[in-house]
């Protein structure tokens, strides 16, 4: 049974049975299934993929697309209806924040209970206890009942226990949203560490950034069907392209996009939105995503705002390195730029770009007039890849020059003082 894959799925599908009433169920039971009183709802259809050890796999799609169903099947809480999958090695999953936590017990007691649920022995848990508490950063709260915890603390504890299992395959449903930026960063670091050690990660998120940043591969599910699968950048591109169409063309389905609940109440057309955004070599029409440090580029953002008086807008462009470090960001609200009209093409020129080599994700954010509320986050179709010909280190090439003065050190200065 040796195989090079950590996780394989073939034709995986899941149908939920919907019974009109309990009586139908009894009828089915006493006729040994001959009387089928249920209708089927296919939450997941014909899903195929193979993951090598060390890969990370992102799931994206609207709510009810089948992401959680797929993760539930793979983590073994529910059985598939058709198809098959094979996982090699131990699986640990974090499907819900604090699943299995008992509110009246202390964090410490819950570590023991949750740990044994995840298949650890008590001995292993007591060995790992300190590192779990350490990772969760609960301090003295660890001996307080879990009901006194904030949701972020619960998440930290849950995540700490799940990674303490040290699984070969880690399955994480969208749970990060609760944590603060600091903890999110910590989780991301942990996930990177897992990847480096050849472990496989499955990750589901509404945040296309996260999927792009954390995952090599991704799948886009829509109403249980696989719409795209493959390289995470391509898949997220297709998904965000689809989302854009969805918002602008089909008002009736706008409600599916839960990230922007305000869109559901108003027709998508009425709200300000970004139509497209691309990077060009400065002053030319050559679209480019591969540049060398020192090149000049411009980002063009096509926007529409049907009611500029009611909904004034601001636009921001950020440069984020793959480990989620924001390297720089510019915004119209920061520069005092004023929009006019109902549509336009905003250009931000970046002459002599001094970013050093790396891949940068460039989110374009459409804010309200004050630059607080985000109407939309638009991810550019490709990441910006920067190459460097010099050997400078860090994020940016600092403007600098070397020279020498003929000066004695100041009287009180110097480190030996």
């Amino acid at each position, binding site marked *: 049974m040796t195989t090079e894959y950590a996780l394989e799925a073939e034709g995986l599908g899941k149908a939920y049975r919907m019974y009109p009433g309990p009586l139908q169920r009894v009828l089915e039971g006493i006729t040994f299934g001959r009387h089928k009183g249920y209708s089927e709802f296919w939450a997941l259809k014909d899903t195929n993929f193979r993951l090598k050890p060390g890969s990370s796999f992102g799931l994206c799609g609207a709510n009810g697309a089948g992401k959680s169903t797929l993760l539930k099947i793979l983590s073994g809480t529910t059985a598939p*209806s058709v198809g098959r999958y094979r996982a090699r090695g*131990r699986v640990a999953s974090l499907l819900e924040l604090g699943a299995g936590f008992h509110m009246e017990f202390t964090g410490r007691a819950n570590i023991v209970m949750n740990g044994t649920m995840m*298949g650890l022995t008590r001995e292993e848990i007591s060995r790992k206890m300190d590192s779990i508490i350490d990772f969760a950063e609960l301090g003295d709260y660890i001996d307080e009942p879990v009901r006194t915890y904030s949701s972020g603390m619960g998440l930290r504890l849950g995540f700490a226990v799940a990674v303490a299992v040290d699984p070969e395959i880690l399955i994480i449903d969208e749970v990060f949203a609760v944590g603060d930026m600091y903890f999110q960063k910590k989780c991301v670091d942990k996930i990177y560490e897992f990847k480096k050690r050849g472990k496989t990660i499955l990750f589901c998120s509404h945040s296309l950034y996260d999927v792009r940043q954390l995952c090599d591969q991704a799948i886009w599910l829509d109403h249980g069907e696989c719409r795209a699968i493959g390289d995470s950048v391509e898949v997220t591109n297709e998904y965000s392209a689809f989302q854009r169409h969805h918002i602008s063309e089909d008002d009736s389905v706008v409600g599916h996009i839960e990230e922007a609940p305000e869109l559901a109440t108003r027709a998508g057309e009425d709200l300000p939105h970004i139509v497209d955004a691309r990077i060009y070599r400065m002053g030319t029409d050559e679209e480019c995503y591969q540049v060398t440090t020192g090149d000049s580029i411009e980002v063009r953002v096509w926007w529409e705002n049907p009611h500029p008086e009611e909904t004034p807008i601001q636009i921001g462009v950020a440069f984020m390195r793959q480990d989620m470090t924001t390297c720089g960001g510019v915004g119209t609200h920061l520069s005092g730029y004023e929009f006019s009209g109902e549509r336009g093409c905003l250009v931000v020129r970046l002459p002599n770009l001094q970013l050093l080599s790396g891949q940068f994700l460039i989110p374009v954010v459409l804010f309200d007039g004050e630059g607080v509320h985000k109407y939309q986050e638009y991810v550019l179709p490709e990441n910006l890849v920067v190459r460097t010909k010099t050997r400078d280190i860090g994020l940016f090439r600092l403007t600098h020059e070397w020279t020498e003065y003929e000066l004695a050190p100041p009287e009180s200065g110097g480190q030996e003082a």
Partner: protein
Amino acid sequence: MTTVQSTDGGAVSPSPTESLPDLDALDHAGGGQVSTVAQRDAEGWVTARPPRFHEIVRRVFGFPGLLRRHKDLVLTSVKRDLEVRFSGTILGWFWPLFHPLFLFVVYYFIFVHLLGFKLQGLPESQKSGMGVYMFVGISAWTAIAETLVRGTSSIVDNGNLIKKLAFPSEILPLNVTLVGLVTLLFAVAMFVVACTLTPMWPAPGWALLWVPVILLVQGVFTYGLALFLSTLQVFLRDTLQVVTVLTTVWMFATPIFWVPEVTKRVADYMPILSINPVYHLVQAWRGALMGDVVIPKTPEIAGGLAVSVEAIGPHLAVLAAWAVGFYVLGFAFFVLCQRRFADEV
């Protein structure tokens, strides 16, 4: 049993023998969630097919093995269950001791003192015979009834756990069963202490050695029933209501408040009454805790050996037959339905 470290990169199955199913290999790995929801074939593929006959057999009889591997999980859950019930109360761990005491006082007062139920012709040391007879019966019965009622909803009540965590869900009704047994053990300990310290009843002797055996058989019996009922409850929520009603009927059909040897009319029905597995259970408990109680024959009453140490063995044999039957049936039913739990709870 150590955790496989990162160096192998999750390369091979931890199991050296290819023929072993992956499930077992996983269990031995000492970490990771163990799903018993779907079937795994020899190559490790998890498929949609229902369990085959040999897989059901393996699950039913492989349960002690699973229990051994997950003993920490079982112990922690039972401890948690007990703590949930008693921690935070003023009397705390004295509650399970007071419970049987209060019960005894109430039953003794009503039935013996007020209604004058008495076992005639007992020696002076066995004067409180009827009270003790009822107390032992009610203690054993409570463990069964509580386990059945609480066990029936054990899977549905833990729906969130079943949906979100992969773990062997057969331990849920087991927890309830074990909690029932531990509570019963408290009552037994209380009884033994009371008999030793007071002249209420002659202290039980070597027959106490039967207690572990009785507990084991009772455990298997209740667990099998609880498994069956909890599975049924997932699909048919009326089960709990039916169980609540039936346990009351069952209680009165079992010689708890009445002594079959006392009336001729009841004695005629003994062949039917002795089908009842709980009858054998309470008689086994009484034998172990009360010793021999002989009721002299009179024109009005049938008389005979109401309680005897000798009869513990035969009583347990009948109960064990029931226990194995219920266990196999309940577990097989559970295994057949388990893959739909997460969708139904």
